[in-house]
């Protein structure tokens, strides 16, 4: 049980996908302007990360590894994740229209998001078993959610403040992103001390 908690917490805080691993920066900068779109995007990411792990983990273990095709991992995962997201969208549209409406535009956006691909590949690289991989995906998604929500708050503060003309727009956003990610550096080492193994 402790192991799951360690995986979950380290995925959320220490190895935060956006702020420590620098994956998924595109939606992080693109969709974080408003809180509600940031939340929608993050929920879609959590959902897709879990689905993608559930789909790619068996493929790696039962298809690629036994046949010595480990080097095809990246391309096969991209293929499977893209198809999976499309399938999920079709299913949602048919059976859960309300969820489809709220995730709506964000689902296709994350079809080939590198954070999603990163989670699936790192799950394999870390040598997790299936349950651990799922927990890690959940943690990564929650970490993405946390980063997005935090950063949308930061951005709305930036929008309202007086910025030098040359800094407006992307420069100040990137600077703020750097400082936000710097703050997450403070979490490194916390988990090792909390749960000594």
């Amino acid at each position: 049980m402790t192991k799951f908690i360690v995986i979950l917490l380290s995925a959320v805080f220490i190895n935060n996908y956006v702020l420590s691993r620098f994956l998924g920066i595109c939606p992080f900068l693109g969709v974080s302007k408003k809180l509600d779109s940031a939340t929608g995007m993050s929920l879609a990411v959590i959902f897709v990360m879990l689905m993608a792990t559930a789909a790619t983990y068996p493929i790696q273990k039962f298809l690629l590894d036994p046949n010595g095709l480990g080097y095809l991992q990246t391309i096969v995962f991209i293929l499977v994740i893209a198809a999976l997201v499309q399938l999920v969208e079709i299913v949602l549209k048919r059976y859960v229209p309300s969820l489809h409406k709220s995730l709506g535009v964000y689902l296709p956006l994350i079809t080939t998001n590198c954070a999603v691909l990163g989670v699936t590949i790192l799950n394999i690289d870390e040598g997790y078993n299936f349950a651990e991989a799922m927990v890690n995906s959940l943690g990564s998604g929650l970490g993405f959610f946390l980063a997005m929500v935090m950063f949308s708050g930061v951005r709305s503060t930036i929008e309202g403040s007086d910025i030098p003309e040359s800094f407006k727009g992307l420069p100040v956003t990137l600077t703020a992103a750097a400082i936000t990610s710097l703050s997450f550096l403070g979490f490194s080492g916390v988990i090792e001390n909390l749960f000594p193994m």
Partner: protein
Amino acid sequence: MLTDILTAVIPVVIIGIICGAVLVIASKLMAVKEDERFPKIRECLPGANCGACGFAGCDGYAKALCEKEGTPTNLCVPGADAVSKQLSEIMGVEFEDVIEQVAVVHCGGDCEKTQDKYEYKGIQSCSAAKLLYGGKGSCTYGCLGLGDCANVCPQNAISIVNGVARVDPKECIGCGLCTKTCPQKLISLVADAEKVVVACSNKDKGAVTRKVCTNGCIGCKKCERVCPLCAIKVVDNCAVIDYEKCTDCPDFGICAKNCTTGCIMLSDLSGLHRMKEEKK
């Protein structure tokens, strides 16, 4: 060598084909039945998303037409009769005439007729300028001339000419965005068949109005007396035309001719721009 390549290519191709097949089957099996009229309706609508119909953009109107029985087909003002005709064909209902509307600015105080009371150097926006002693013009009711309406106009039909906003009726689609934007509430929509417009909104007493603008309505009620249809009423020291009564005037233009200050203007709004659309 060849087998190495094939062992890599074949699994990927197979996975690709399987994924493709699953998607095809899924999209066929679980296709959501979209109203087939929706894309057709959407195509007819002009796509300006102006909201004149009262729905949230063209998509909203198309959706309402599909889902709610009895939604009128003549709500799209920018699209005018042409769109209404197409919509009623698609919906299978009777064609209803669209009352095309055109925005009119009820102010004629250009740089010659009125003066500024101070020099405004703030943010170049009417709503900002109005906050400072009711605007820079000596008439606090008049057009501020900083072009908030021109900025919001999707058709670029409004321009600031000599300090006053002017609507080009040929370009105006009657969406009404400018009427909502103008901080002075000077712009209103009138049916484009109308030919007489009061170009003043000053509600001060005649003497006060006279001092600030030579074009201003002084509320002398001369127009009230000469109008054969009793369509003009002076309300709050400013003439207002009741367009419902102002039809088939036997003595057309008499109000404008008799106006002491010249704030009642004849302007031919009668759908010049609609003709070109019908020709299409």
